[in-house]
């Protein structure tokens, strides 16, 4: 049985980096293979690309939110549009490129999350392997759909949350807020991590890992960075569509909250 324990801090760091790069390369290869075999577009992917095209050609995101597509995920559409404008590629190439990039990173984050969760490198490697070949993740990764953004950001969020649980700092909770904001603007379901974060903070106070003051500070940091991220995303959308930001922000927020609340049927 080979010794998988990594002793030196530096060697451990480089070993982890190498493993991460290898996982990413393997993941990317599998996804590229899938794309070569089956380049078809899912229906929803076609819808998103259609919206992006409309947005690019009209410079108007407002009508998507208010009329045509009230549930349009702003962040994935905006990032596809931005890549299109920066590189001049069409919507499909831009969407697939971003999806491949983010989708291939998911097994890497999964590996580090498993390492934090189980503290076993063997389990983490098996997790990464399963995530590399997971049929649904592979399929998502080659399609320009919002799931890639959503899974990537919540995976990053969960990883940072784990870090914050082990050693809570305001900085880490602030990072959680950023990923929470990004994932919420990719898919509304990410709002579930608000109560999760609250639960974790209460847990940490209950087990005296942090003081009440630290809990409040951490919570405020999370909310502030979440708000800042949300405003940045809205500013990006607004910047392109040249609409009053407060008007758009108000509509987006109302819709997000209304959508969120309306779906709870306890």
């Amino acid at each position, binding site marked *: 049985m080979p010794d998988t324990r990594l002793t030196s801090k530096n060697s451990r760091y480089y070993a982890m980096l190498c493993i991460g790069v290898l996982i990413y390369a393997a993941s990317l290869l599998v996804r590229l293979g899938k794309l070569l075999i089956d380049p078809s577009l*899912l229906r929803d992917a076609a819808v998103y690309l259609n919206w992006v095209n409309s947005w690019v050609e009209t410079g108007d995101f407002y009508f998507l939110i208010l009329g045509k597509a009230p549930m349009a995920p702003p962040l994935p559409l905006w990032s596809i549009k931005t890549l299109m404008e920066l590189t001049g590629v069409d919507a499909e190439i831009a969407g697939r490129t971003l999806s491949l990039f983010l989708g291939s990173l998911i097994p890497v984050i999964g590996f580090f999350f498993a390492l934090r969760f189980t503290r076993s490198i063997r389990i*983490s490697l098996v997790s990464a392997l*399963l995530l590399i070949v997971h049929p649904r993740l592979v399929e998502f990764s080659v399609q320009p759909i919002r799931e890639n953004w959503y*899974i990537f950001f919540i995976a990053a969020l969960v990883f940072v949350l784990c870090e914050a649980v082990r050693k809570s700092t305001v900085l880490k909770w602030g990072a959680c807020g950023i990923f929470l904001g990004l994932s919420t603007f990719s898919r509304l379901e990410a709002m*579930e991590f608000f109560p999760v974060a609250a*639960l974790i903070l209460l847990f940490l106070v209950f087990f005296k890992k942090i003081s009440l003051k630290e809990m409040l500070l951490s919570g405020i940091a999370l909310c502030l960075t979440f708000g800042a991220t949300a405003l940045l995303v809205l500013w990006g959308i607004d910047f392109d569509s040249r609409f009053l930001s407060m008007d758009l922000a108000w509509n987006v927020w109302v819709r997000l909250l209304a959508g969120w609340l309306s779906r*709870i049927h306890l």
Partner: protein
Amino acid sequence: MTMLEAFEKIPKGVNIIIFIWALIGLYLLIRDPKFKKDKYFWLYTVVIAFMVAWRVAIRILTSRYAAGLIIPFVVLASVFLVNSVKRRHLIVRLGLYVLIAVTGFIVLKMNLDSTTRNYYSDTIAEIYEDLGQSRGKDYTFLVEHDDYSRIYFLTHLGKKVGRIKDEEVHDFVFGYRRIYPDTILNTPSKNITDEISRLDNMRLLASLIEKKTSKRIKKQFIYAVSGHDECVPISKSQIAPRAENDLLENGDMEELDSPEESFGKLETYLGNEALIRAVDPALRTPRAAYFTFVPPDEPPAPSAEGAPGAKDYDPLINGTAILPGFSMQSDFSIDGDRSARICAADGTASLMFEKRVQSGRYEYSMLVQGETGTEICVSYEVCRADGDRELRTVALLTLPDKRLFQVRTRFSAEDLADADFFRVGVSVRNGEAFFDDFSLSPVPAEVLTARDAD
């Protein structure tokens, strides 16, 4: 949708094999003394349980909503896989290796299945071919779901068509029943074909396609449904005189004159009965930017001047809209002196006739001749007094060659229900065509019934 359905969607979203492995993995972790006393482990377990409960509470609509659970469940599944092969008897270990290999094979197969499951890659081409054969290859139809952005987008990209579910097929057929929906089913659905055949003004062109996929024969039924639309080649000697009861007085375009002289005449001539508009190719919806009539002494809009479709012609009517590439003039004759030429270099330009008529059945026809490959869209717009409008596509066809064609289509009473007035029109997409002899005539019910029987 009940909460219990979430328990079906979650394993499906996570992958059923991994879901089972994860449950066993969780059980192993709970029993593991190292984790049993670890409060962090319990915190994570509670968080995962909360994520599951959240999805049950909000009643997830599809298995994709469970995508957020994939990573935690995969980690738990890995716990099972790693724990199952250590510190056990050789026989047990071998058995577990076999179990893992078999389930791993199933996961791999799922991956391959998802890769090869695109049975519809050549759908559009096959329907094209099928319709062409069924009508003697005189012309072909562009089969497309207009108004339905996703399919529209796919067909315009020339991309492979993704999976279409049974219930969506139903929506296509009944929601957009005048548009040649190609409906694709994995299994033949007699109910749908029966219902289609009962619909007024509909015709079913059914096609069975067998496709070999992963060493299995998949049968697909493809239904092309249309109204009584006809698009037949016609010679000039076959052109019938105008019907006495024709509601379009301006059906012949002879009144149109040369560009320099005719604008005022056209304005008077078309008056309030016609309008020309361009549909934004980006929106691909009836959210149109309307062309407005511009007095001839006003300079043409710069965008139209330099546009690819307009540069060869002197645009008779220029748009103040921002959309370039559209023109209309009348220097070519199909029948009589002059015909309308509609050119849309990049996008859609439409000519519509507005009629305030009583509800009833009508036949709408026109002569068309144009560049090979030009897309012609016959449509009508139901207008209400409160300003509400709804544009419906009747037929989409691509001109196969430069011959003269007669296009005929019919509107039923149901089509015009709730309309205070309506507009019939024709659009040109990505090309140019000449039109003449627009005609809108009431159709006696008995005639329609006789044709339906055919």
